[in-house]
Every structure is written in structure tokens, then in C-alpha cells.
């Protein structure tokens, strides 16, 4: 390879701060928008799959997710979307202290979102469907709230219990109240034909719910990592090139707004409709 082809180490990357004449925007921004376009198609494909599954399904479960918890998470994400844009405005106004405050708040809100989501996921993996050999079907919680049990796991465990204490769910509005409600049922393990948690394997609705919300949660985690970098070590760039740092925070904000946009559709589709 000829020596002239090797770029010098101190080469400056063009258009990190100023707009490129032909596109009218700095390079990171056009790159981020193209990335978001690909993300739109990724989530679009999953939403399209959701529609296909739903219109082709003879029945669709309702009320499996808590609307107040979902709404709370929506408010958390909307709040974080505002704080991230405020952190960018603080940099535009040369107020680095405020940037740290708003960016820190965004990270905390994002962590709160993930915590609430984890709580919801945990609740699904400790919620069970039981079918007895006599055909009786029950949903509810096993005493001690074990995580993701199955009949095979239960039978294979070292201290396999002979029976499980089961707390059936309260009936939904309009449904008759069975005698077993509010009672702890003692279910002999040998009488159980099927035992499974409300994981993605339970039904089509939960499969698409975990796929969509899991992918969204991964995006939230990715955002947290980038924002933590800007809040911590990455802010050294502020001393070197204020405009470039401000642009980095702007594109991070654009990504974060996209994460909120996806949730704006996910919430009604999964919790309400």
C-alpha cells in the first residue's frame, strides 16, 4: 500500500459541527435520521405482524396488562423526552450545569421506565395457568411467587413438592364468582396436567407483547448507555468543541424522541385495544 494512501492521525472529520453544503445539515444528523428510517421499518414490520396475528386470531386476550402501570410508564417517558430536549437547550444557552441536571434527570427517568417494565415482566413470569387432569383450568399465583415454573421443572427439582398452594385470580367484572376465589387451593402435583407462566409461550398476544416491548426496552437501555456517556466521560468534548458536543446531544435527543414515539403507539396497542 503506498504511504500516501494512509490518512494522517490528526485528520479532522469534516462537518461534525457545521452543516454540509449539499445536505444542509451536519453529518451526524443525516446519519441519525437514516438510522431512524431503518428503525421505522423494523418496528413497522413488527406492528404489521401484530395486525396480521390479531386479525387472524379467533380470540384476543384483554386485561392481561395493567393500564395504570402502562400509563405511568408513558408519563415517565414523556417526561424524559422533555428533559432531554431541555438538556440540549441548556447547551445552546452555554449553561453546562443545567445540561448535567437535565441529562441526569433523563437518565433517572429512563432507569425508572426500565424498573417499572421489569416489575411488569416479573409479574407475568410469576402468574400461572394450571390445567388439572379433570379438565379444570385456573389462573393465579403459586404461594411464594416462584419464577417461571413448569410442570417438568417442578417434577425434576430436587425437593419436588407433592402439592402446590395456589391463589386463583379474582374473577373479571361480569364473570360469576367461583367458590375457589379468595381461597388457597392445595393442588396435588400428580393431578396437574399443565403448568405454565404467562411468558411469551402462553399465547400469541403475549408472544408479540414480549417481542415488541422487549425490543423497545433494548432501545431504552441503548439510550441510557449513550446518555450516561455524554453525562460522564463524553462531556470532555464540551471543552474542546462546544458545537460538536451540542450536536451529539441533539442527535441523542432525536433518538430518544423516537423511542418515545414507538411507545406512544405501543401503549394503546398493547394495553388498551
Amino acid at each position, binding site marked *: 500500500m503506498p504511504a500516501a494512501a494512509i490518512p494522517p492521525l490528526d485528520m479532522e472529520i469534516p462537518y461534525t459541527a457545521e452543516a454540509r453544503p*449539499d*445536505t*444542509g*445539515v451536519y453529518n451526524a*444528523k*443525516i446519519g441519525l*435520521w*437514516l438510522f431512524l*428510517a431503518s428503525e*421505522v*421499518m423494523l418496528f*413497522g*414490520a413488527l*406492528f*404489521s*405482524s401484530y*395486525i*396480521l396475528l390479531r*386479525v*387472524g386470531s379467533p380470540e384476543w386476550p384483554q386485561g392481561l396488562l395493567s*393500564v*395504570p402501570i402502562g*400509563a405511568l410508564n*408513558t*408519563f415517565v417517558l*414523556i*417526561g424524559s*423526552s*422533555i428533559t432531554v*430536549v*431541555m438538556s440540549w*437547550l441548556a447547551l*445552546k*444557552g*452555554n449553561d453546562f450545569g443545567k445540561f448535567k441536571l437535565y441529562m441526569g434527570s433523563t437518565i433517572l427517568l429512563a432507569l425508572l421506565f426500565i424498573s417499572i417494565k421489569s416489575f411488569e415482566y416479573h409479574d407475568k413470569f410469576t402468574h400461572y395457568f394450571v390445567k388439572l387432569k379433570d379438565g379444570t383450568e385456573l389462573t393465579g399465583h403459586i404461594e411464594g411467587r416462584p419464577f417461571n415454573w413448569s410442570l417438568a421443572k417442578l417434577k425434576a427439582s430436587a425437593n419436588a413438592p407433592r402439592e402446590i398452594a395456589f391463589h386463583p385470580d379474582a374473577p373479571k367484572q361480569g364473570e360469576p364468582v367461583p367458590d375457589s376465589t379468595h381461597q388457597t387451593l392445595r393442588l396435588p402435583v400428580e393431578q396437574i396436567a399443565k403448568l405454565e407462566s404467562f411468558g411469551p409461550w402462553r399465547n400469541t398476544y403475549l408472544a408479540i407483547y414480549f417481542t415488541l416491548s422487549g425490543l423497545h426496552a433494548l432501545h431504552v437501555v441503548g439510550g441510557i448507555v449513550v446518555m450516561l456517556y455524554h453525562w460522564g466521560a463524553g462531556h470532555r468534548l464540551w471543552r474542546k468543541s462546544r458545537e460538536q458536543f451540542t450536536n451529539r446531544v441533539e442527535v441523542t*435527543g*432525536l433518538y430518544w*424522541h*423516537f423511542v*418515545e*414515539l414507538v411507545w*406512544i*403507539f405501543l*401503549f*394503546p396497542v398493547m*394495553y*388498551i*385495544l
Partner: protein
Amino acid sequence: MSDNNSQALQQEARRHLIIFGAVALGTILIVLSSFAPLATGVKIAAVLAVAIAQASLVAGFLMHLITEKRMVISSLVLTAIFFVALIFLPFLSEADQTHHFLLR
């Protein structure tokens, strides 16, 4: 920083707070609609209309799409066309229109 710049930033911050209020209000409307005794079709249309309005506010104002350069807008218009096609594919398949047209 000039006074004009500072004032413009304050105005922008205020605008973002109004957007926050509007999007939060949209969420409240969506939650209320879940308790409303509406027909399924009406409920789906109402909830999706509010969600689209919320998304427009976020994309237009928080992501500054209303003042964005042509280059960005044109790439997003292309994405939107493909996105709409993607979303309507299941309906096409459900109605079995392809099969219907082929038989003609």
C-alpha cells in the same frame, strides 16, 4: 450570549413544556377511552387518532421536523411510503385481494 438568543431559547423551552402538556393530555384521553362504553371499531379509531396526534406533536416540535431541511424530509417521506405499505400488507392478505385479482 445575546439577550435575543436567551429570549428565543426561553421561548423554545416554554413551547416544549406546552407540547409535554398536550402529549400528557393525549395519554389521559387514551386511558379514559379504555373505560368508555364504545364499540370496538370506534374505540380503535379514537385511540389511534389520539396516538397519531401525539406522535405528530413529538415528531414536529420535539424532533423539529417542521423546520428540518429538505434532505431529511425527503428521506422520511420515502420511509413513510414504505411504512404505510408495510402496515397495509396484512389487510391485503386478510382480504385475499391478491387471489381475487389473479382470478379475474
